[in-house]
């Protein structure tokens, strides 16, 4: 047994297990606060830290709220409906959390204490990290359906069915938009992808990269069941979807799993398109890389919250149509354009042709998106009304 | 107010229809109701395409005393008799001509209340006639889906009838000053 290796593994994993769940707690607070402000409310502002058992408390804008929520969740009754499949009812939340936690390992988080030659973070830096990421997040679908089926509730079942259809459909544009980056870098290794974007060579600044990023982000929203694609848990239609029958700690696990999956998929988006840990000052201070990485993840999460505060959700057929009729053709086209543009640009580096290639790629993609949109668009437009006396 | 509708053409077309002067309503015999309704809806002079309000009234046998001053200046008491009956009242408007209302009544007996359903003529009667069936117990022949609507299916009786007696109070809650409390004290309420 290599104790050093175990030590290195612990050094690599424990921070993940500390950082992300605490970020989860913080994110729930930020989400509540931000949504409240979007809706012109104040949000949680009373729960604080008790200073003494006899009174006096430090209420830092309600920062104690996540802790209070957690304690509440722990103490709530665990209700399993009669006739539910108790085993799968129990397994589902666990299964939804595990893959989400697992894929965090593949994010190229370069912790300063892991920078030696014996970089044990490489234990996780599989050559097939990106593929492994998708393979494992696919398990989440199973957990969701398990929950929907085991609850013995019609709403849960409907939610589970919706979730399967949605997650399987959106996996394809998700993977295809990631393929572009993999193709350009020529590697599935997250660290190498990050390395390739060093400096300001972020792929999001390329036309094909931008298109792929947008597709990836939209598909990621659907994968993590975030608004406007939160159909499996559509409150106004099917109560709470697949976790209708979950309460207490099991519900908390679902909640945790969902947020960790959000972090994971945002982390992947940052890795693939937003230059991973790249940012100002990283050459001088390498530890800034972790900070930048997490900051970018937070920005993406912020956009997700913002979207949630603004948009209503789609209908099932529209959701599927959007994946198959819009995102899929566009992402396939994007692969070709990326190939052409990359080669044309490389051949004419620094000339006017490269600019032309860059611009024309952008125009082609925009035109394709518009065209696909028009093809898909039903006669949907604002109407005129008349007035009577 | 929108224009009032002349009722004379109806009386000419259908001699069976009566005009009740007191309330200003058409009294339509239950056998003729659908025919009259379709005519009212489709006739170009009326075009009563919108049936706003449908409701029932339950009249018990009643007497009214009215004090009238006769020519000599003395007060006399006249007794009006109001026979027991049930009525279904329809308030008809025309959206096309913006006129209305014309009030139409189907009159039926209390013992065996039956009326013709006008749901085939105006869809708006569907739920309202169900409600009348539920609360008054008037049977509508030709109604597509005559079930109880506001009360539950197992409910007995028709609560809007004037002689309806509340059953045993199953939703009893102790209020401090109430007849229910008295009942409770007498031991009539069991929980």
């Amino acid at each position, binding site marked *: 047994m290599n104790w050093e290796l175990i030590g290195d593994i612990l050094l690599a994993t424990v921070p993940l297990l500390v950082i992300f769940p605490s970020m989860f707690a913080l994110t729930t607070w930020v989400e509540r606060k931000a949504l409240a402000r979007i809706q012109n409310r104040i949000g949680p502002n009373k729960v604080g830290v008790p200073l003494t058992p006899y009174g006096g408390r430090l209420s830092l804008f309600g920062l104690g709220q996540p802790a209070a929520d957690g304690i509440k969740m722990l103490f709530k009754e665990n209700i399993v409906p009669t006739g539910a499949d108790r085993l799968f009812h129990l397994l589902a939340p666990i299964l939804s959390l595990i893959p989400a936690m697992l894929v965090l390992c593949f994010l190229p988080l370069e912790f300063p204490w892991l920078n030696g030659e014996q970089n044990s973070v490489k234990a996780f830096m599989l050559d097939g990290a990106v593929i492994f990421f998708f393979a494992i997040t696919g398990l989440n679908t199973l957990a969701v359906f398990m929950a929907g089926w085991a609850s013995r509730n019609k709403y849960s079942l409907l939610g589970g069915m919706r979730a399967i259809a949605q997650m399987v459909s959106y996996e394809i544009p998700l993977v295809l938009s990631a393929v572009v980056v993999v193709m350009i870098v020529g590697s599935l290794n997250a660290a190498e992808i990050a390395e390739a974007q060093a400096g300001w060579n972020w792929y999001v600044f390329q036309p094909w990269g931008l298109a792929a990023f947008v597709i990836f982000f939209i598909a990621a929203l659907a994968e993590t069941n975030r608004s406007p694609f939160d159909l499996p848990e*559509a409150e*106004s239609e099917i109560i709470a979807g697949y976790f209708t029958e979950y309460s207490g700690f099991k519900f908390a696990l679902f909640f945790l799993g969902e947020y960790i999956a959000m972090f994971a998929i945002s982390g992947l988006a940052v890795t693939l398109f937003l230059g991973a840990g790249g940012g100002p000052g990283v050459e001088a201070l390498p530890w800034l890389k972790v900070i930048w990485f997490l900051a970018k993840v937070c920005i993406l999460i912020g956009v997700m919250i913002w979207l949630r505060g603004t948009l209503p*959700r789609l209908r099932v057929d529209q959701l599927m149509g959007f994946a198959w009729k819009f995102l899929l053709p566009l992402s396939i086209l994007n692969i070709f354009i990326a190939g052409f543009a990359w080669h044309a640009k490389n051949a004419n580096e620094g000339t006017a042709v490269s600019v032309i290639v860059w611009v024309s790629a952008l125009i082609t993609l925009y035109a394709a998106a518009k065209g696909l949109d028009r093809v898909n668009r039903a006669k949907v437009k604002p109407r005129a009304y008349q007035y*009577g006396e | 107010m929108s224009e009032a509708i002349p009722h004379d053409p109806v009386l000419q077309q259908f001699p069976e229809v009566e005009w009740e002067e007191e309330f200003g309503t058409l009294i339509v015999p239950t056998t003729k109701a659908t025919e009259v309704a379709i005519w009212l809806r489709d006739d170009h002079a009326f075009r009563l395409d919108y049936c706003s309000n449908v409701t029932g009234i339950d009249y018990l046998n009643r007497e009214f005393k009215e004090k009238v001053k006769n020519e000599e200046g003395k007060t006399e008491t006249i007794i009006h008799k109001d026979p027991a009956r049930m009525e279904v009242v329809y308030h008809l408007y025309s959206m096309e001509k913006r006129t209305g209302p014309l009030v139409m009544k189907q009159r039926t007996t209390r013992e065996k209340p039956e009326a013709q359903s006008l749901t085939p003529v105006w869809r708006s009667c569907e739920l*309202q006639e169900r409600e009348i069936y539920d609360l008054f117990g008037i049977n509508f022949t030709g109604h597509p889906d005559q079930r109880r609507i506001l009360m539950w299916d197992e409910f007995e009786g028709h609560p809007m009838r004037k002689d309806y007696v509340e059953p045993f109070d199953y939703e009893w809650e102790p209020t401090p000053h109430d007849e229910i409390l008295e009942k409770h004290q007498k031991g009539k309420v069991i929980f």
Partner: protein
Amino acid sequence: MTAAAPNYELIQQDDLETSLLEVSMGPHHPSTHGVFRMDVKLDGETVVDLKPVFGYLHRNHEKLAESMSYLASMPFTDRLDYFNSMTNNWAYALAAEQLIEIEIPERAEYLRVIMSELTRLVNHVSLVGFFVNDLGALGTPLLYAFREREKILDLFEQASGARMMCNYFRFGGLRCDVPEGWLDRTREVVDRFPKFLDEYEKLLCENEIILSRTQDVGNLSKELAISAGITGPMLRASGVNYDIRKVDNYGIYDRFKFRVPYSKGEVGDCYDRFMVRMLEMRESIEILKQALDGIESGPIMGNAGKVFKPAKAEAYGRVEAPKGELGFYLVADGTTQPYRYRVRPPSFINLTVLQDMCIGQQVADAVIILGSIDIVLGEVDR
């Protein structure tokens, strides 16, 4: 595969036939707007059959009103459509005033118009919020709507003492005059409202998701709408120009210049119903501005006697409530209690066509169709 063919056929005969999924949506469902139930049969996500089930909030309001004096059921009318207590009051007062000749003072008439148009703003703005909430928008538009509603409810509280159960109208006028400065505060709220509406429209009216979710969903033809007695914004969304404020000119509505928005009558879908309400709010603001300019001081109560005891008569009073035609049918028999008291609830009758509109749509559409009808269960079940 050829080897498996016999098995495949065997399965297909009986066992793979799928049955319809029967779901009881409600009475405890987040978006049935109260305790309303829809027994839905689903084929996958498509609604095959839908039966509305009523009566969970039934309290036999009509029977109660027949056992008390005319005035005493005024506070109970507040509880019918608890969003619009002012228009409920007005409809009842209108019916009762037909039973007895009462001159209503000028100022009371103006205040009635102001109150009822404010109510219309409250109802439409929050209905749009609820509707978008049913679409899944996490309450953001709803809370913007409630912010504005709050300002108007403050006005109601100042005038009548209560925010929702106002109980403000009386036969022959109003219960009390508005406090000093109330009209100025109202003017301030009314003047600011269009700015809010601009923002609201910007947030909602062009949103592609809302457009694609609501257009061509829950279509209601003009003919069916008229036949089924649909009233209010829902009727006008189906392309019928019928507004009782214009048709009956009750109160002093003939003094105000306003227009009635209605659709071209091609589809009559959820989007039309949503937009007609948005446009109606602008017209209500116009009425409010004119009414606030026109109001003068004076008495607010006509010379109604202490005891309301009409002679034997029948009356049907109807107003254009925000949800449609709200009518009160009173049969007086010469005593102090009505012999027959009937409410014609707009949202109950508008539900007649729920089934027709929902069949063939998705389950998510059934929810927004219900939302676009605009029901309040206090009124549906009475």
